[in-house]
Protein backbone atom coordinates (compact mmCIF):
# COMPACT_ATOMS: atom_id res chain seq x y z
CA UNK A 1 0.00 0.00 0.00
CA UNK A 2 1.52 3.33 -1.03
CA UNK A 3 0.51 6.87 -0.10
CA UNK A 4 -0.69 7.74 -3.55
CA UNK A 5 -3.37 5.14 -3.84
CA UNK A 6 -4.94 5.62 -0.44
CA UNK A 7 -7.19 8.50 0.59
CA UNK A 8 -8.80 11.34 -1.34
CA UNK A 9 -7.37 12.86 -4.50
CA UNK A 10 -7.15 16.62 -5.03
CA UNK A 11 -10.62 16.94 -6.46
CA UNK A 12 -12.13 14.87 -3.68
CA UNK A 13 -10.40 17.05 -1.08
CA UNK A 14 -11.79 20.19 -2.74
CA UNK A 15 -15.23 18.59 -2.95
CA UNK A 16 -15.19 17.69 0.72
CA UNK A 17 -14.21 21.26 1.67
CA UNK A 18 -16.92 22.68 -0.61
CA UNK A 19 -19.55 20.76 1.39
CA UNK A 20 -18.75 22.94 4.42
CA UNK A 21 -19.22 26.28 2.69
CA UNK A 22 -22.60 27.68 3.72
CA UNK A 23 -25.10 28.95 1.18
CA UNK A 24 -24.73 32.67 0.57
CA UNK A 25 -21.13 32.89 1.79
CA UNK A 26 -18.51 35.34 0.63
CA UNK A 27 -15.47 33.20 -0.09
CA UNK A 28 -11.83 33.77 -0.99
CA UNK A 29 -9.97 30.82 -2.48
CA UNK A 30 -6.19 30.53 -2.42
CA UNK A 31 -4.05 29.36 -5.30
CA UNK A 32 -3.74 25.62 -6.02
CA UNK A 33 -6.15 22.96 -4.71
CA UNK A 34 -8.28 25.65 -3.00
CA UNK A 35 -9.18 27.03 -6.45
CA UNK A 36 -10.90 23.73 -7.22
CA UNK A 37 -13.41 24.26 -4.42
CA UNK A 38 -15.47 26.54 -6.68
CA UNK A 39 -16.15 23.63 -9.05
CA UNK A 40 -17.60 21.51 -6.28
CA UNK A 41 -20.01 23.72 -4.37
CA UNK A 42 -23.17 21.63 -4.01
CA UNK A 43 -26.03 22.50 -6.35
CA UNK A 44 -28.53 24.88 -4.86
CA UNK A 45 -25.98 26.92 -2.97
CA UNK A 46 -25.00 30.35 -4.22
CA UNK A 47 -21.55 31.44 -3.16
CA UNK A 48 -19.85 34.76 -4.03
CA UNK A 49 -16.14 34.68 -4.76
CA UNK A 50 -13.80 37.49 -3.80
CA UNK A 51 -10.39 37.91 -5.30
CA UNK A 52 -8.15 40.31 -3.44
CA UNK A 53 -6.96 42.12 -6.55
CA UNK A 54 -10.28 43.94 -6.69
CA UNK A 55 -13.25 41.82 -7.72
CA UNK A 56 -16.28 40.46 -5.91
CA UNK A 57 -18.42 38.12 -7.97
CA UNK A 58 -15.64 36.27 -9.76
CA UNK A 59 -16.92 33.76 -12.30
CA UNK A 60 -15.28 30.68 -13.82
CA UNK A 61 -12.24 30.56 -16.08
CA UNK A 62 -13.11 31.97 -19.52
CA UNK A 63 -13.30 29.82 -22.61
CA UNK A 64 -10.00 29.63 -24.46
CA UNK A 65 -9.52 32.82 -26.47
CA UNK A 66 -11.81 34.80 -24.15
CA UNK A 67 -9.04 35.78 -21.73
CA UNK A 68 -8.64 39.44 -20.82
CA UNK A 69 -5.24 40.34 -19.33
CA UNK A 70 -7.02 43.03 -17.30
CA UNK A 71 -9.54 40.64 -15.78
CA UNK A 72 -7.53 38.30 -13.59
CA UNK A 73 -7.57 36.72 -10.14
CA UNK A 74 -5.05 36.88 -7.30
CA UNK A 75 -3.11 34.04 -8.96
CA UNK A 76 -2.87 36.26 -12.05
CA UNK A 77 -4.99 33.89 -14.13
CA UNK A 78 -7.79 35.03 -16.44
CA UNK A 79 -11.26 34.89 -14.88
CA UNK A 80 -14.77 36.15 -15.66
CA UNK A 81 -17.43 38.08 -13.74
CA UNK A 82 -20.94 37.02 -12.76
CA UNK A 83 -23.90 39.37 -13.25
CA UNK A 84 -23.86 41.39 -10.05
CA UNK A 85 -20.07 41.60 -9.76
CA UNK A 86 -18.21 44.70 -8.57
CA UNK A 87 -14.71 46.07 -9.15
CA UNK A 88 -12.89 48.15 -6.52
CA UNK A 89 -9.37 49.25 -5.61
CA UNK A 90 -6.90 47.38 -3.46
CA UNK A 91 -7.53 49.24 -0.20
CA UNK A 92 -11.28 48.64 -0.48
CA UNK A 93 -10.62 45.02 -1.41
CA UNK A 94 -8.46 44.43 1.65
CA UNK A 95 -10.95 46.33 3.83
CA UNK A 96 -13.29 43.43 2.98
CA UNK A 97 -10.65 40.97 4.18
CA UNK A 98 -9.22 42.85 7.14
CA UNK A 99 -12.59 44.18 8.30
CA UNK A 100 -13.89 40.60 8.68
CA UNK A 101 -16.43 40.80 5.89
CA UNK A 102 -15.28 37.64 4.05
CA UNK A 103 -16.90 34.55 5.57
CA UNK A 104 -14.58 31.77 4.47
CA UNK A 105 -11.06 31.55 3.12
CA UNK A 106 -9.58 28.32 1.83
CA UNK A 107 -5.79 28.22 1.70
CA UNK A 108 -2.91 25.85 1.12
CA UNK A 109 -0.36 25.06 3.82
CA UNK A 110 3.21 24.01 4.45
CA UNK A 111 2.64 23.38 8.15
CA UNK A 112 -0.26 23.68 10.60
CA UNK A 113 0.32 23.47 14.32
CA UNK A 114 -1.94 22.02 17.01
CA UNK A 115 -2.69 25.61 18.05
CA UNK A 116 -3.90 26.47 14.56
CA UNK A 117 -0.76 28.34 13.60
CA UNK A 118 -0.29 28.38 9.84
CA UNK A 119 2.94 28.46 7.83
CA UNK A 120 2.36 28.75 4.10
CA UNK A 121 4.52 31.54 2.70
CA UNK A 122 8.21 30.80 3.22
CA UNK A 123 10.55 27.98 3.98
CA UNK A 124 12.75 30.51 5.74
CA UNK A 125 15.79 29.27 3.80
CA UNK A 126 18.47 31.94 3.44
CA UNK A 127 18.36 32.10 -0.35
CA UNK A 128 14.58 31.91 -0.66
CA UNK A 129 12.91 35.00 -2.09
CA UNK A 130 10.39 35.91 0.56
CA UNK A 131 6.93 36.57 -0.91
CA UNK A 132 3.83 36.82 1.23
CA UNK A 133 1.12 38.35 -0.97
CA UNK A 134 -2.23 38.57 0.80
CA UNK A 135 -1.89 35.42 2.95
CA UNK A 136 -1.23 37.22 6.24
CA UNK A 137 -4.17 39.58 5.65
CA UNK A 138 -6.47 36.68 4.87
CA UNK A 139 -5.67 34.62 7.95
CA UNK A 140 -5.85 37.69 10.21
CA UNK A 141 -9.10 39.01 8.76
CA UNK A 142 -11.35 36.27 7.43
CA UNK A 143 -13.87 34.80 9.86
CA UNK A 144 -13.29 31.11 9.05
CA UNK A 145 -10.03 29.70 7.72
CA UNK A 146 -10.00 26.32 6.00
CA UNK A 147 -6.81 24.67 4.85
CA UNK A 148 -6.57 22.12 2.07
CA UNK A 149 -3.28 20.24 1.93
CA UNK A 150 -1.70 16.88 1.44
CA UNK A 151 -1.39 15.31 4.85
CA UNK A 152 2.36 14.82 4.41
CA UNK A 153 5.18 16.53 2.59
CA UNK A 154 6.54 14.99 -0.60
CA UNK A 155 9.23 13.41 1.60
CA UNK A 156 6.52 11.79 3.72
CA UNK A 157 7.14 14.07 6.69
CA UNK A 158 4.27 15.52 8.72
CA UNK A 159 2.64 18.86 7.85
CA UNK A 160 0.37 18.75 10.90
CA UNK A 161 2.84 19.44 13.69
CA UNK A 162 3.12 20.32 17.37
CA UNK A 163 4.58 23.64 16.46
CA UNK A 164 5.59 25.10 13.10
CA UNK A 165 9.27 25.28 12.18
CA UNK A 166 8.66 27.45 9.11
CA UNK A 167 7.98 31.17 9.47
CA UNK A 168 4.35 31.75 10.44
CA UNK A 169 1.63 33.30 8.30
CA UNK A 170 -0.54 33.74 11.39
CA UNK A 171 -0.95 32.42 14.91
CA UNK A 172 -4.00 30.46 15.98
CA UNK A 173 -5.88 31.11 12.77
CA UNK A 174 -6.80 27.76 11.19
CA UNK A 175 -10.27 26.38 11.89
CA UNK A 176 -10.40 23.20 9.81
CA UNK A 177 -8.03 21.10 7.69
CA UNK A 178 -8.90 18.97 4.67
CA UNK A 179 -6.15 16.51 3.77
CA UNK A 180 -6.00 13.51 1.50
CA UNK A 181 -6.47 11.34 4.60
CA UNK A 182 -8.93 13.14 6.85
CA UNK A 183 -10.93 16.20 7.84
CA UNK A 184 -9.67 17.66 11.11
CA UNK A 185 -10.75 20.53 13.34
CA UNK A 186 -8.24 22.58 15.28
CA UNK A 187 -9.44 22.48 18.89
CA UNK A 188 -7.91 23.67 22.16
CA UNK A 189 -7.15 20.02 22.94
CA UNK A 190 -5.47 19.33 19.59
CA UNK A 191 -6.34 18.10 16.09
CA UNK A 192 -9.74 16.43 16.17
CA UNK A 193 -10.54 13.93 13.39
CA UNK A 194 -14.02 14.66 12.03
CA UNK A 195 -13.91 12.25 9.14
CA UNK A 196 -11.53 9.71 7.62
CA UNK A 197 -11.01 9.10 3.92
CA UNK A 198 -12.31 5.72 2.70
CA UNK A 199 -9.96 2.95 3.78
CA UNK A 200 -7.94 5.20 6.08
CA UNK A 201 -7.75 4.39 9.77
CA UNK A 202 -7.36 6.74 12.71
CA UNK A 203 -4.01 5.13 13.53
CA UNK A 204 -2.81 5.53 9.95
CA UNK A 205 -3.49 9.29 10.19
CA UNK A 206 -1.96 9.49 13.68
CA UNK A 207 1.26 7.89 12.43
CA UNK A 208 1.54 10.64 9.82
CA UNK A 209 0.76 13.50 12.20
CA UNK A 210 3.31 15.11 14.56
CA UNK A 211 0.66 16.18 17.05
CA UNK A 212 -1.85 14.29 19.14
CA UNK A 213 -5.05 13.37 17.28
CA UNK A 214 -8.40 13.27 18.99
CA UNK A 215 -11.18 11.01 17.73
CA UNK A 216 -14.44 12.68 16.64
CA UNK A 217 -16.29 11.08 19.56
CA UNK A 218 -14.39 10.37 22.74
Amino acid at each position, binding site marked *: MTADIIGWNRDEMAKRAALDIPDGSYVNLGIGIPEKVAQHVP*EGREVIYHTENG*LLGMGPVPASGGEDPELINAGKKAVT*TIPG*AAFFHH*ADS*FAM*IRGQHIDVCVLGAMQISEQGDLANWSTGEPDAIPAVGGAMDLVA*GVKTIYVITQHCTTDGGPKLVESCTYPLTGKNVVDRIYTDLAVLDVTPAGFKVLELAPGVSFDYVQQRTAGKLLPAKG
Partner: protein
Amino acid sequence: MDGDGGSPLIWINGWFFKMIDKQVDSPAKAVADIFDGATVMIGGFGEAGSPIELIHALIDQGAQNLTVVNNNTGSGHVGLAALIENGRVAKMICSYPRTVGSKVFPELYRSGKIDLELVPQGTLAERIRAGGAGVPAFYTATSVGTPLAEGKEQRHFAGRDYVMEYGLKADFALIKSKQADRYGNLIYNKTARNFAPIMAMAAETTIVQAERMVTAGEIDPEIVVTPGIFVDRIVTVANPEQESKLVAEGRFYP
Protein backbone atom coordinates in the same frame (compact mmCIF):
# COMPACT_ATOMS: atom_id res chain seq x y z
CA MET B 1 -36.12 38.83 -10.32
CA ASP B 2 -39.27 40.86 -10.15
CA GLY B 3 -38.05 43.71 -8.01
CA ASP B 4 -40.96 43.64 -5.58
CA GLY B 5 -39.55 41.41 -2.89
CA GLY B 6 -40.21 38.01 -4.43
CA SER B 7 -37.41 35.48 -3.93
CA PRO B 8 -35.60 34.71 -7.15
CA LEU B 9 -35.42 31.04 -7.94
CA ILE B 10 -33.00 29.21 -10.15
CA TRP B 11 -33.75 25.94 -11.88
CA ILE B 12 -31.01 23.34 -11.79
CA ASN B 13 -31.40 19.75 -12.95
CA GLY B 14 -35.13 19.70 -12.35
CA TRP B 15 -35.08 21.45 -8.98
CA PHE B 16 -35.77 25.05 -8.03
CA PHE B 17 -33.27 26.63 -5.66
CA LYS B 18 -33.51 29.92 -3.80
CA MET B 19 -30.82 32.41 -4.80
CA ILE B 20 -29.19 35.03 -2.59
CA ASP B 21 -31.75 37.74 -2.07
CA LYS B 22 -31.37 40.40 0.59
CA GLN B 23 -34.74 42.03 0.01
CA VAL B 24 -37.23 42.30 2.85
CA ASP B 25 -40.87 43.32 2.52
CA SER B 26 -41.11 46.43 4.64
CA PRO B 27 -39.15 48.97 6.65
CA ALA B 28 -40.78 47.47 9.76
CA LYS B 29 -39.36 44.00 9.02
CA ALA B 30 -36.01 45.49 8.07
CA VAL B 31 -35.50 47.11 11.49
CA ALA B 32 -37.35 44.54 13.61
CA ASP B 33 -34.30 43.22 15.49
CA ILE B 34 -32.65 46.51 16.44
CA PHE B 35 -32.24 46.04 20.16
CA ASP B 36 -32.25 48.37 23.16
CA GLY B 37 -28.80 49.85 23.66
CA ALA B 38 -27.69 49.20 20.07
CA THR B 39 -25.27 51.49 18.26
CA VAL B 40 -26.93 52.62 15.03
CA MET B 41 -25.17 54.52 12.26
CA ILE B 42 -27.60 56.56 10.18
CA GLY B 43 -26.55 57.86 6.78
CA GLY B 44 -27.15 61.37 5.58
CA PHE B 45 -25.70 64.85 5.70
CA GLY B 46 -28.65 66.95 6.74
CA GLU B 47 -31.55 65.54 4.75
CA ALA B 48 -29.42 64.44 1.79
CA GLY B 49 -29.21 60.67 2.09
CA SER B 50 -31.24 60.45 5.28
CA PRO B 51 -33.16 57.12 5.27
CA ILE B 52 -36.30 58.68 6.67
CA GLU B 53 -38.64 55.69 6.20
CA LEU B 54 -36.19 53.40 8.04
CA ILE B 55 -35.88 55.93 10.87
CA HIS B 56 -39.64 56.18 11.15
CA ALA B 57 -39.88 52.40 11.22
CA LEU B 58 -37.32 52.40 14.03
CA ILE B 59 -39.45 54.91 15.97
CA ASP B 60 -42.48 52.63 15.54
CA GLN B 61 -40.41 49.61 16.55
CA GLY B 62 -39.62 51.14 19.91
CA ALA B 63 -35.94 50.37 20.60
CA GLN B 64 -34.60 52.49 23.46
CA ASN B 65 -31.32 53.77 24.75
CA LEU B 66 -29.67 53.89 21.33
CA THR B 67 -26.28 55.36 20.49
CA VAL B 68 -26.72 57.06 17.14
CA VAL B 69 -23.92 58.04 14.77
CA ASN B 70 -24.87 60.74 12.25
CA ASN B 71 -23.20 63.93 11.12
CA ASN B 72 -26.09 66.02 12.51
CA THR B 73 -29.10 65.72 14.82
CA GLY B 74 -31.94 66.20 12.36
CA SER B 75 -34.33 69.08 11.94
CA GLY B 76 -37.97 69.77 12.72
CA HIS B 77 -39.88 66.89 14.28
CA VAL B 78 -39.44 64.11 11.72
CA GLY B 79 -36.69 61.63 10.88
CA LEU B 80 -33.66 61.70 13.17
CA ALA B 81 -35.02 64.67 15.14
CA ALA B 82 -38.19 62.67 15.85
CA LEU B 83 -36.17 59.64 16.96
CA ILE B 84 -34.35 61.91 19.42
CA GLU B 85 -37.54 63.73 20.45
CA ASN B 86 -39.23 60.42 21.20
CA GLY B 87 -36.55 59.72 23.78
CA ARG B 88 -34.94 56.77 22.02
CA VAL B 89 -31.42 58.13 21.79
CA ALA B 90 -29.17 58.07 24.84
CA LYS B 91 -26.10 59.36 23.00
CA MET B 92 -25.26 61.10 19.75
CA ILE B 93 -21.88 60.77 18.07
CA CYS B 94 -21.72 63.59 15.55
CA SER B 95 -19.82 66.60 14.23
CA TYR B 96 -22.51 69.24 13.95
CA PRO B 97 -25.53 68.96 16.27
CA ARG B 98 -26.70 72.47 15.51
CA THR B 99 -28.74 73.16 12.39
CA VAL B 100 -31.21 75.78 11.36
CA GLY B 101 -34.58 74.48 12.48
CA SER B 102 -33.06 71.97 14.88
CA LYS B 103 -34.58 72.54 18.32
CA VAL B 104 -35.01 69.01 19.61
CA PHE B 105 -31.41 68.09 20.33
CA PRO B 106 -30.34 71.43 21.88
CA GLU B 107 -33.17 71.30 24.43
CA LEU B 108 -32.49 67.72 25.49
CA TYR B 109 -28.76 68.39 25.60
CA ARG B 110 -29.11 71.49 27.78
CA SER B 111 -31.35 69.62 30.18
CA GLY B 112 -28.79 66.80 30.41
CA LYS B 113 -31.10 64.19 28.89
CA ILE B 114 -28.82 63.16 26.03
CA ASP B 115 -25.08 62.59 25.76
CA LEU B 116 -22.95 64.02 23.00
CA GLU B 117 -19.61 62.83 21.65
CA LEU B 118 -18.49 65.65 19.40
CA VAL B 119 -16.11 64.48 16.65
CA PRO B 120 -14.59 66.54 13.83
CA GLN B 121 -16.35 65.58 10.62
CA GLY B 122 -13.27 64.14 8.91
CA THR B 123 -12.24 62.24 12.01
CA LEU B 124 -15.78 60.86 12.21
CA ALA B 125 -15.61 59.69 8.59
CA GLU B 126 -12.14 58.20 9.04
CA ARG B 127 -13.13 56.47 12.29
CA ILE B 128 -16.11 54.86 10.53
CA ARG B 129 -13.98 53.72 7.59
CA ALA B 130 -11.37 52.38 10.01
CA GLY B 131 -14.07 50.45 11.87
CA GLY B 132 -15.12 48.87 8.59
CA ALA B 133 -11.57 48.13 7.46
CA GLY B 134 -10.33 46.36 10.59
CA VAL B 135 -8.23 49.28 11.83
CA PRO B 136 -8.72 49.64 15.60
CA ALA B 137 -6.93 52.99 15.85
CA PHE B 138 -5.04 55.54 13.77
CA TYR B 139 -3.39 58.92 14.11
CA THR B 140 -4.58 62.25 12.74
CA ALA B 141 -3.46 65.88 12.90
CA THR B 142 -7.06 67.06 13.15
CA SER B 143 -7.95 68.61 16.53
CA VAL B 144 -4.36 68.77 17.83
CA GLY B 145 -4.08 71.73 20.18
CA THR B 146 -7.85 72.06 20.58
CA PRO B 147 -10.27 71.04 23.35
CA LEU B 148 -11.33 68.03 21.26
CA ALA B 149 -7.84 66.56 21.66
CA GLU B 150 -7.98 66.74 25.44
CA GLY B 151 -7.58 63.37 27.08
CA LYS B 152 -6.52 61.77 23.82
CA GLU B 153 -3.16 60.13 23.31
CA GLN B 154 -0.79 62.33 21.35
CA ARG B 155 2.24 61.32 19.36
CA HIS B 156 4.88 62.89 17.21
CA PHE B 157 5.60 61.56 13.70
CA ALA B 158 8.11 63.21 11.35
CA GLY B 159 7.94 66.67 12.86
CA ARG B 160 4.24 66.95 13.59
CA ASP B 161 1.87 66.15 16.45
CA TYR B 162 -1.05 63.79 15.99
CA VAL B 163 -3.84 62.42 18.17
CA MET B 164 -4.87 58.80 18.28
CA GLU B 165 -8.46 58.08 17.30
CA TYR B 166 -10.33 54.78 17.49
CA GLY B 167 -12.13 52.94 14.72
CA LEU B 168 -15.88 53.11 15.12
CA LYS B 169 -18.24 50.19 14.51
CA ALA B 170 -21.96 49.78 14.86
CA ASP B 171 -24.52 47.05 15.38
CA PHE B 172 -26.69 48.45 12.59
CA ALA B 173 -26.45 50.96 9.78
CA LEU B 174 -29.51 52.53 8.17
CA ILE B 175 -28.75 54.02 4.76
CA LYS B 176 -30.49 55.19 1.61
CA SER B 177 -29.51 54.31 -1.96
CA LYS B 178 -30.74 55.06 -5.44
CA GLN B 179 -30.50 51.53 -6.84
CA ALA B 180 -29.81 48.12 -5.40
CA ASP B 181 -29.69 44.56 -6.72
CA ARG B 182 -30.47 41.34 -4.86
CA TYR B 183 -26.83 40.98 -3.73
CA GLY B 184 -26.91 44.45 -2.18
CA ASN B 185 -24.73 46.21 -4.74
CA LEU B 186 -25.58 49.89 -4.40
CA ILE B 187 -25.31 53.17 -6.25
CA TYR B 188 -26.29 56.52 -4.76
CA ASN B 189 -27.64 59.89 -5.88
CA LYS B 190 -25.21 62.85 -5.95
CA THR B 191 -24.27 64.21 -2.50
CA ALA B 192 -26.75 61.85 -0.85
CA ARG B 193 -23.86 59.35 -0.97
CA ASN B 194 -21.92 61.01 1.89
CA PHE B 195 -21.55 58.63 4.87
CA ALA B 196 -23.53 55.68 3.49
CA PRO B 197 -20.71 53.66 1.87
CA ILE B 198 -18.48 53.77 4.95
CA MET B 199 -21.33 53.13 7.39
CA ALA B 200 -22.27 50.07 5.34
CA MET B 201 -18.70 48.84 5.91
CA ALA B 202 -18.67 49.54 9.65
CA ALA B 203 -21.97 47.97 10.75
CA GLU B 204 -22.58 44.36 11.68
CA THR B 205 -25.97 44.59 9.93
CA THR B 206 -26.52 47.12 7.15
CA ILE B 207 -30.09 47.95 6.22
CA VAL B 208 -30.76 49.84 2.99
CA GLN B 209 -33.79 51.66 1.68
CA ALA B 210 -33.42 51.72 -2.09
CA GLU B 211 -35.49 53.79 -4.46
CA ARG B 212 -35.32 51.07 -7.08
CA MET B 213 -34.43 47.38 -7.27
CA VAL B 214 -32.64 46.28 -10.40
CA THR B 215 -31.64 42.90 -11.76
CA ALA B 216 -28.20 41.61 -10.77
CA GLY B 217 -25.81 42.82 -13.46
CA GLU B 218 -27.86 45.88 -14.35
CA ILE B 219 -25.43 47.99 -12.31
CA ASP B 220 -22.15 47.91 -14.27
CA PRO B 221 -19.46 46.27 -12.07
CA GLU B 222 -17.26 49.31 -12.77
CA ILE B 223 -19.69 51.76 -11.15
CA VAL B 224 -20.87 49.86 -8.07
CA VAL B 225 -20.16 52.13 -5.11
CA THR B 226 -21.05 49.76 -2.27
CA PRO B 227 -20.39 46.09 -3.12
CA GLY B 228 -23.07 43.73 -1.81
CA ILE B 229 -20.77 42.19 0.79
CA PHE B 230 -21.41 45.23 2.98
CA VAL B 231 -25.20 44.99 2.75
CA ASP B 232 -27.56 42.70 4.66
CA ARG B 233 -31.13 43.85 3.99
CA ILE B 234 -32.79 45.96 1.33
CA VAL B 235 -36.27 47.42 1.36
CA THR B 236 -37.66 49.31 -1.62
CA VAL B 237 -38.99 52.78 -0.87
CA ALA B 238 -39.82 54.07 -4.30
CA ASN B 239 -40.88 57.58 -3.30
CA PRO B 240 -39.20 58.54 -0.05
CA GLU B 241 -40.48 61.51 1.93
CA GLN B 242 -38.42 64.67 1.66
CA GLU B 243 -37.40 65.82 5.12
CA SER B 244 -37.31 69.56 4.39
CA LYS B 245 -40.83 69.39 2.98
CA LEU B 246 -42.16 67.67 6.09
CA VAL B 247 -40.36 70.22 8.25
CA ALA B 248 -41.81 73.11 6.22
CA GLU B 249 -45.26 71.60 6.71
CA GLY B 250 -44.68 71.45 10.46
CA ARG B 251 -45.13 67.67 10.53
CA PHE B 252 -44.41 65.51 13.57
CA TYR B 253 -43.58 61.80 13.62
CA PRO B 254 -45.33 59.69 14.64
